[in-house]
């Protein structure tokens, strides 16, 4: 069994009229990961998902899911996938329970009590048990989204593809959706697109960033947040810091020391060549000077937003 559930190679989609929605995407999604597929609106995220699901055909390249070609073996692929659309639409005259029954019967057959048990579990998971028998036409956006997650996971898919699962939700709804995703991660791989960076940072373990149809970066989230180049330590100090600054800057494993004045002291950004050595010695070396007090010390941790903006600006330059 391959470690990867999705492998896309040179995947491209060019629409009539010359619009290139996706341009040579290479992507690998590891089994049992929560893979955040990130990009601004119009980056090509939904197009990628449609190509994976066989709803559209690539103009070049190919995608392979579970060893099956997304275009040629689309039925085999769809047997293994649960999907939530960006703006989920159902048959409005159906109730949530009927919708789940309809969905489940595409995947499984068997005794009715077993089918109903699976439906009850899914309704409970997304907190829709009390609305199970109401027609969907009366559902709010959040309830539709919950139903969307329920119908996506009811077949116990090997891969869940969620297109902007939290985009239309209020903060409470978003929190609930992320909690559900966390519950599901034990059983399945989750590939989800979003432009909400906070959500990605909270739940993803791997991230790909797409812009103008091109892949800008793909890496484990910790790697992205650590930034590229030198590891940087951020230190807040009080006292007479100039003399210490010169001493630290002169160390062979220190690349640079940038200082800025902050209220009641200074903030240093110390870039180092050897982070292990810095972990061990940097704070101790600073404190050797009696005139200096350290208020805080730690590695700089980038926010995903910084990384995202830097990458997009870098790609545009």
């Amino acid at each position, binding site marked *: 069994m391959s470690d990867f559930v999705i492998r896309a190679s040179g995947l491209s989609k060019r629409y009539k009229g010359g619009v290139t929605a996706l341009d040579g995407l290479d992507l690998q999604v590891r089994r049992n990961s929560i893979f955040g597929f990130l990009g601004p609106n119009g980056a090509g995220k939904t197009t990628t998902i449609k190509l994976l699901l066989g709803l*559209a*055909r690539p103009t070049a390249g190919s995608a392979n899911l579970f060893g099956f070609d997304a275009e040629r073996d689309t039925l085999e692929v*769809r047997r293994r996938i649960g999907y939530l659309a960006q703006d989920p639409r159902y*048959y409005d005259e159906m109730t949530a329970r009927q919708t789940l029954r309809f969905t489940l019967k595409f995947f499984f057959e068997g005794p009715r009590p077993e089918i109903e048990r*699976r439906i009850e579990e899914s309704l409970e998971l997304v907190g829709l048990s009390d609305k199970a028998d109401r027609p969907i036409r009366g559902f709010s956006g959040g309830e539709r989204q919950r139903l969307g997650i329920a119908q996506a996971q009811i077949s116990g898919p090997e891969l869940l593809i969620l297109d902007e699962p939290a985009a239309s939700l209020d903060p409470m709804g978003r929190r609930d959706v992320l909690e559900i995703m966390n519950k599901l991660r034990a059983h399945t791989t989750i590939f989800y697109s979003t432009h909400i960076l906070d959500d990605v940072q909270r739940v993803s373990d791997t991230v790909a960033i797409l812009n103008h149809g091109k892949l800008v970066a793909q890496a484990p989230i910790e790697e992205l947040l650590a930034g590229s180049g030198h590891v940087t330590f951020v230190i807040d100090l009080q006292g007479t810091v100039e003399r210490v600054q010169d001493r630290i800057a002169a160390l062979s494993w220190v690349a640079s020391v940038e200082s800025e004045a902050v209220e009641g002291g200074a903030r240093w950004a110390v870039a180092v060549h050897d982070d292990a050595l810095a972990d061990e010695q940097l704070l101790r070396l600073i404190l050797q000077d009696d005139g200096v007090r350290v208020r805080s010390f730690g590695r700089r941790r980038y926010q995903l937003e910084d990384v995202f903006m830097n990458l997009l600006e870098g790609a545009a330059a």
Partner: protein
Amino acid sequence: MSLVPAVASGWRAGFGNALDKELGSWWRTRRWLIHLVMWPLIVGFFCFMVWADDRSRTPANGVNESVQLFFQLGGFFALIGAVLVTQGAIVGERRSGTAAWVLTKPLTRNAFVLAKLVGITFSFLMLSLVIPSLVWLVQIKLQWGQIPSLDHFYEAVGILAIHQFFFIALTLTLGTFFQHRAGVAGAALGFWIAGRILPGQLPQWLVALTPWPLVDLAPAVALWRPVPIQVWIPTLASAVLAVVCVAIALWRFGREEF
């Protein structure tokens, strides 16, 4: 016993479930009741008017006029009904996004289209033709004390069913090309209107290869009157054209991108 993976493969994957949903939209909602009341009422009303208009005519004449009316009304109102109930089957789902949703499940595109064709054809023909014909026979028996020959009558009902089936297939096919219901309905009804205008200007052999003569042939068959052309030619031609329409619909929908 636990759940097992659905076994249908090839084009049939998902067909049973999709058909069950289509039939459910007719028979598990109030839709069937509306049609069940509407069609016998339309036909029954006009046949009652024939009876009420002149009760002095002979029962045989009364039955003949009622038969004529049944098939003409069936060919007109039920045809419009067939177009109206089918016009949104593909377009509506494409525009609402439900087609894209359901096609992310293990359902083939052929199964999606064929489930609609079978579901609509069966339900609509039952509710607009088969059940009203039974109600109509009872009404005619009560009004005139006799009914037409059942063999010939149901032979004619079969011809009308082929006519309706053709228009359902045509409308479904148009739904795979057009983006709006109005275009679908307009083109389907336009084809029917053309059948009222063009036959006099076209060679008879060509007209015989269309469904256009069927509405006029059906009452003649029911009353066992001489007909100008072999009945089986337009009947078979209509069935073949319906199958061609379905083949085109499957080809077109298979190329659709969402």
